[in-house]
């Protein structure tokens, strides 16, 4: 699998940073943001393949953030992280074009597989570019 770029958006700094370290160790290029506004700023400046988005954050709600990301950068895939009690939010997110949702606390391997799937989907949709290995 290619090295691809992931943006982690979560206000739980400790969680986000640990996840970033662990995913970096698995050869992904990781950026982080603490809220939706920061994520949008970063996305405007940096090419990112997949966004991992906690749906429960201060400021802009997760679904609003998702809508905004998909509007500005339709090619970016978004994986949502939700609590067990937020299946309605998860479903709303899927309708808005999220790639998938995972329940927190998430298993790292499961997250990694879904990230790879999301990236693969993005590459396929883009066609061209580098051939898949």
């Amino acid at each position, binding site marked *: 699998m290619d090295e691809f770029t992931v943006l982690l958006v979560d206000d*739980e*700094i400790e969680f986000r940073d*640990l996840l970033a370290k*662990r995913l970096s160790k698995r050869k992904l290029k990781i950026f982080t943001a603490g809220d939706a506004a920061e994520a949008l700023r970063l996305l405007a400046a940096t090419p990112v393949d997949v966004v991992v988005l906690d749906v429960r954050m*201060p400021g802009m709600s997760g679904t609003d953030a998702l809508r905004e990301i998909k509007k500005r950068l339709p090619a970016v895939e978004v994986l949502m992280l939700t*609590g067990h*009690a937020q299946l309605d939010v998860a479903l709303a997110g899927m309708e808005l074009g999220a790639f998938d949702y995972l329940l927190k*606390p*998430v298993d790292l391997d499961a997250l990694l597989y879904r990230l790879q799937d999301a990236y693969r989907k993005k590459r396929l949709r883009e066609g061209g570019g580098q051939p898949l290995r």
Partner: protein
Amino acid sequence: MEATGAGPRPEQGEGRRLELSSLADFAAGLAHEINNPLAVIIEAAGWVEDLLEDEETKSNLEEMRRSLRQIATQAGRCKEITHNLLSFARRVPGRVYDVDLNELVREVAATFEKRAASQKVVIGLHLGEGLPRRRLSPTAIQQLLVNLLNNALDALEPGGGRIDITTRREGGDVLLDVADTGTGIPQEVAARIFDPFFTTKPVGKGTGLGLSICFGIAEDMGGSISVDSQVGRGTTFHVRIPERPAGEGDLEPARLHSEEEDSDGIVPRSPTVVLLVDNEEGFVETVAKRLERRSLMVLVARSGQEAIARLEAHGAVDVVVLDVKLPDMDGTEVLKELKRRAPLVEVILLSGHSTVESAIDGMRLGAFDYLVKPCELRLLLRQIDKARVKKARQEERIMEARLKEITMRRA
């Protein structure tokens, strides 16, 4: 803008109760609150595992240490949630006493002075004179005050400001107001502030249970709590304590120690010797001084080991006042050791809100009573007196038994 907690208006009170009893919402909030720290714990543990796979483990040691500290911190967060949950469920043992609300306010406010000063906050007390005493659980009222003051101080960050606590009479009721000049609460938020797990504090800072606990306390005593707030101007919480608080008779649970003894009757032959075991500097000094002024003899120990040594060295300690949280030993362990060495010594436990569980364990191990800090000095004095009387009676009983034994042997 005003939001009412429990209230005289029945339709509102009922609506609120329904909301509180919404088990699904409650469970969802709880799951979320606990899942967040759990997620960090899982990742931190995973990260240590990742690092252990590396060849050169040495250079990873600091990273591992950091992760382990994180695990401990986050587990602590979980613990705080469960403790708050416990007091939410049980609202802390509610023994009722004749309470002087003003004195309680003064004591609690005093414990906040340091933090207030460091945050550039002035706490003003406006305590009405001649307030009738009420049969209330001092522990519950303390908890209510502590929660309201904590919130007020948070609302005054970072610029500082004022907190004004007012007590007054209105008809037969007693009113308590806690007002701050802080950020204020937006209307859409005010409607939800008494809901369990609702919080606007940053991650890890609030469990969202404080005000719902206050709500429960107000409701338990048949009173009410409401809020007035203006964004940018400040917030005032109003607590109404009714003329006859609910549960006057029935709130008193079966006491864990038996007889409610009267201190009349036995006159102490010599001053009561109290061993005060606590490592909170300011607290120890103040309490020791105040007990001495009341002609008690006070010995001080600042750790469990020191307490045991002191007890053995002095030999005539009547009552031990023991904080359950000590630097070197678990409070219940100290209690056990003291009781093993001097079975007749009575022990009064002091606990914080978060250590009430060990105080309750202590009661099972034979402590005379426990008090939750900050506690009214008068209450502490009364319990010391009662404990001393109980010990004196016990000693008399033993003396009588011995005398009887001797006379029987002679006969």
